[in-house]
């Protein structure tokens, strides 16, 4: 089957469109998270998403609807733990993420019957994405990218130095809250693409690949988005052609991109 045949399939078209938008969103947001040294919040919130999906399946509501408020509240919980309990971000993320996983496991165990559904959320099912989910992915991605664009300079300022940002009138508390809420929504949105277990790779790998080769902050975001989109497109084609899990293939391709630019960077500086 050639590429033209592949592209004629509706499910491939839907996967490519939704995946590309989500990849751009993850790369853009991930650039700020990586430079803010807050990369692992994506991983932590993904674990909470597992708990949120379990709640949705348990209550028999659409899992994304249950996951969104739970993950958003958890992200605010992480910020509060850092602020009030005098702990570093990684410890706060560890606490909240393990709590999310534990709740998910308990609910799955109590319900007993939805383990197969949960499995699809854990490892992603982009090829099974519906038309409505594609539309929702596009709208939500554009909305979140728009918010990032509106607060671009404030996000850049706190990523560079939070204390100086505060002394230039940036409301750092509000911007930090915005950043974690954006991350929450992005993580829930991206779980259909690569699965809960692999979401953080979409947030981290494209930006760190871009950081190896680019000059300037905007260029880093553009390059990271390009890497993310190409990985998703290639990942969908390769996984379909070779009968591999799509989410894992996308992540491996992202890693290969990183490895390539890392080696290129090292060789070009010799």
């Amino acid at each position: 089957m050639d590429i033209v045949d592949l592209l004629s399939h509706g499910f491939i078209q839907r996967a490519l469109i939704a995946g590309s938008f989500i990849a751009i969103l993850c790369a853009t947001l991930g650039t700020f998270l990586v430079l803010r040294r807050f990369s692992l919040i994506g991983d932590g919130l993904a674990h909470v998403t597992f708990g949120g999906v379990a709640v949705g399946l348990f209550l028999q509501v659409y899992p994304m609807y249950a996951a969104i408020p739970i993950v958003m509240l958890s992200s605010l919980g992480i910020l509060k733990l850092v602020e009030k309990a005098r702990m570093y971000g990684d410890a706060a993320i560890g606490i909240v993420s393990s709590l999310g996983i534990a709740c998910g496991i308990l609910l799955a165990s109590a319900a007993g019957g939805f383990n197969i559904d949960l499995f699809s959320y854990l490892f992603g099912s982009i090829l099974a994405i519906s038309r409505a989910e594609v539309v929702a992915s596009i709208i939500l991605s554009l909305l979140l990218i728009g918010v990032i664009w509106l607060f671009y300079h404030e996000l850049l300022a706190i990523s560079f130095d939070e204390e100086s940002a505060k002394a230039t009138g940036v409301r750092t508390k509000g911007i930090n809250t915005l950043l974690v809420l954006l991350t929450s929504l992005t993580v829930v949105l991206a779980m259909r693409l690569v699965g809960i277990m692999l979401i953080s790779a979409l947030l981290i790998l494209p930006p760190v690949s871009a950081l190896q080769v680019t000059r300037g902050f905007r260029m880093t975001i553009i390059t990271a988005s390009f890497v993310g989109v190409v990985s998703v497109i290639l990942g969908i084609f390769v996984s379909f052609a070779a009968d591999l899990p799509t989410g894992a293939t996308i992540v491996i391709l992202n890693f290969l991109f990183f490895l390539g630019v890392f080696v290129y960077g090292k060789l070009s500086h010799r």
Partner: protein
Amino acid sequence: MSVDVLSAEGLLFRHNSTEVLKDISFRLQAGDYVGIVGPNGSGKTTLIKLFLGLLQPNEGTISLFGVQPSAFREWRKVGYLPQRITSFNPHFPAAVREIVALGLLSTKGFPKRVTRDDDRAIDKALILLDILDIKNDLIGELSGGQQQRVLIAKAIVSEPELLILDEPTTALDPDAREKFFGTLQSLNEMQRVTIIIITHDIGSIGKYASRLLYLDKRIVFYGGFDAFCASGDMANYFGEHSQHIICHRHDSQPGSLIDR
């Protein structure tokens, strides 16, 4: 009667149960140039953070242009250079002009955007610091001294009325340091920018500052350099030998601002 640029009354700041600063009261008026000196751990950086509302005092009041720091909104009037950027990532991908532009955020509404006029202001600040030629370089690729000059440019790019600098010259070579103090002097004299500078280089600051604030958890001395040299505090804190060297060096500097 003009409003004080900055005033503090009866400040007390504790970290856990330890008193870091106590009995801090002083006023600063437009055009003042104050050097804050004192030993390590004397509370200099803490005092600056209190002024900027980055820390809250346990007791006492602070007024920044007549307003409490927590309610202060005119941040364009304030330029700040922190002692060191704790989160500074050597691989941060922003170019020098992007970093300096962050100093203009306080002048912007919503959404904050950099305009062509801002580009001119950025160039002006870079020229003043003699680093226009590196405006497109990445901040992480610069030497420590160049990075420091970029951060100073960021602090002054909004043409603030109050400039607060925490050990700005530590990474600068002697030539750059002299030039930097000359730039501050011109900002202070020509544009009446009020300056607060923390430094261990009491000899250099003595040449330029109009007042010295000697801090050691409380204000030990606040006044002109000549009075500082004449007081017993100098010998107590620096030793007689250092006092002789510093005060003699100050006396030998022509055109000192201390007598203004």
